[in-house]
């Protein structure tokens, strides 16, 4: 067995027969992990759905307090970051080091921009006393009790999403360093592909969060 090591790729782990098997295992592993993430966020989406069906107006009214422009900007930012991420994966597959660094760097910047906008939004909520707790005050709300429930869900859902963004940016930073060291070649670029899957997933969660939280009843006047 040891004689074969000389011709084996340094990244091939001992319990795998070849790099293809190793890559497929890693990809399947990441897909499974993303399934767990769907179920994880799913609990929150379920709670949201049940309460929104029960109290549609309170939710609509509370939703209108969110800044659609900032939310929309963030959506655009994240979608762009998924593009740059896909480009980073391509660059990894092509073994193009400088492109890898460019696209990973852009992805990180866009991710940070997203978090920055979120921070601005959160700060505004604090200022306007829309954070659930003893300080919560929603002037003119017709149903402040369930409006507060909306905001509870808003903070937990976007907070959890933001936490995933932070982890994602951390992953990108690690990838950036690895890319700088020339680790990703045509033969081996699994970490980039697999992290790309994660990044796209976090993007997709936002694609669901945005309309559900920001766009309730925006098409017409509030009843």
């Amino acid at each position, binding site marked *: 067995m040891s004689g074969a090591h000389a011709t084996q790729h340094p990244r091939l782990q001992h319990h795998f027969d070849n790099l293809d098997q190793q890559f497929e295992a890693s990809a399947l592993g990441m897909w499974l992990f993303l399934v767990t993430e769907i179920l994880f966020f799913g609990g929150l989406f379920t709670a949201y759905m049940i309460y929104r069906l029960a*109290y*549609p107006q309170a939710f609509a009214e509370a939703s209108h307090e969110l800044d659609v422009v900032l939310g929309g900007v963030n959506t655009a930012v994240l979608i762009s970051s998924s593009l740059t991420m896909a480009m980073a994966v391509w660059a990894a597959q092509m073994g193009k080091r400088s492109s890898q660094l460019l696209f990973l760097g852009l992805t990180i910047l866009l991710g940070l921009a997203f978090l920055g906008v979120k921070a601005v939004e959160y700060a505004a909520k604090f200022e306007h006393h829309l954070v659930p707790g003893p300080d919560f005050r929603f002037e003119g709300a*017709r*149903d402040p009790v369930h409006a507060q429930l909306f905001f509870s869900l808003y903070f937990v859902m976007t907070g959890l999403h933001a936490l995933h963004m932070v982890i994602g940016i951390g992953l990108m930073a690690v990838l950036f360093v690895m890319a700088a060291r020339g680790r990703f070649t045509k033969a081996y670029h699994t970490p980039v592909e697999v992290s790309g899957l994660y990044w796209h997933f976090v993007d997709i969660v936002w694609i669901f969060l945005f309309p559900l939280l920001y766009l309730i009843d925006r098409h017409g006047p509030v*009843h």
Partner: protein
Amino acid sequence: MAPQVDALYFFLVALTAFFTLLISGLVVYFAVRYRRRSTDEAGAAIHGNLRLEIAWTVIPLVIVLFIFGWSAKLFFTMARPPADSLDVYVVGKQWMWKFQHPDGHAEVNELHVPVGTSVKLTMTSQDVIHDVYIPDFRVKADVLPGRYTHLWFKATKPGRYRLFCAEYCGTNHSGMVGWVVVQERAEYQQWLAGGAGTGTMAQTGEKLFKDLACATCHQADTTGRGPTLIGLYGKAVTLDDGRTVEADEAYLRESIVNPRAKMVSGFQPIMPTFQGLISEEGLLQLLEYIKSLKAAPSNATGVPAAAAATPEKK
């Protein structure tokens, strides 16, 4: 109902005993009959048998569907209190039970009921989830904060029957016990005549209605700033978002503690919330009062008599 529940229960006991003995017996028999007789012996080359698989899939399936049907039918009856049930209102709190009879009798941890009469408990909790369990009647239902739940029973024999809290609720969960005292009609009448001390629940509710100035907006006709409550209980109500809901107990309770959650179409959102200002007992008394406001002007409650049920506003 209890004997019917027991019938199903003991059928299941017999079923369990039968299959346990059958299969264990078979296993023991095979173990003895086919015990290894020489060191290198191996078992027969048997792969399986499709007919057997189908048989022991279909037969258990039929049996369980039978049990399902039987128990579902029984459960349906258990979940539907007869229309002419005697109402009793229950408020559970850590760690005691408060019972209110519509005639005003209030009891703590003990509930007097007449034999041979359906009794319907309408229950809520002041704090955490509790549960009313009367083993001898084979009834049980969770008691929730912020909601009303129900159970009903009809006692067939006079006596004292244990009542337990059956949903863990903290320190003194096992102390939250009581008795259901089932009396012969005559005895029960005597107990009732002993006097409640206060007026009926509806009367106490009416007093609350006045004290809290509800009548300011809720008038006998449609001219008030709020919808009329005459004949409201059980009616279909149209909300301002187009939904139609039934004005049941849950709706009425919610409308008092969080009026803006469901707004009746055609009215302004000006009703203040009474959350924390009225106890659960008080809410139940108001409920009884509102229930008593029938469309026909036959009750002398002081509210100006209404000619007919209010037409729905759109």
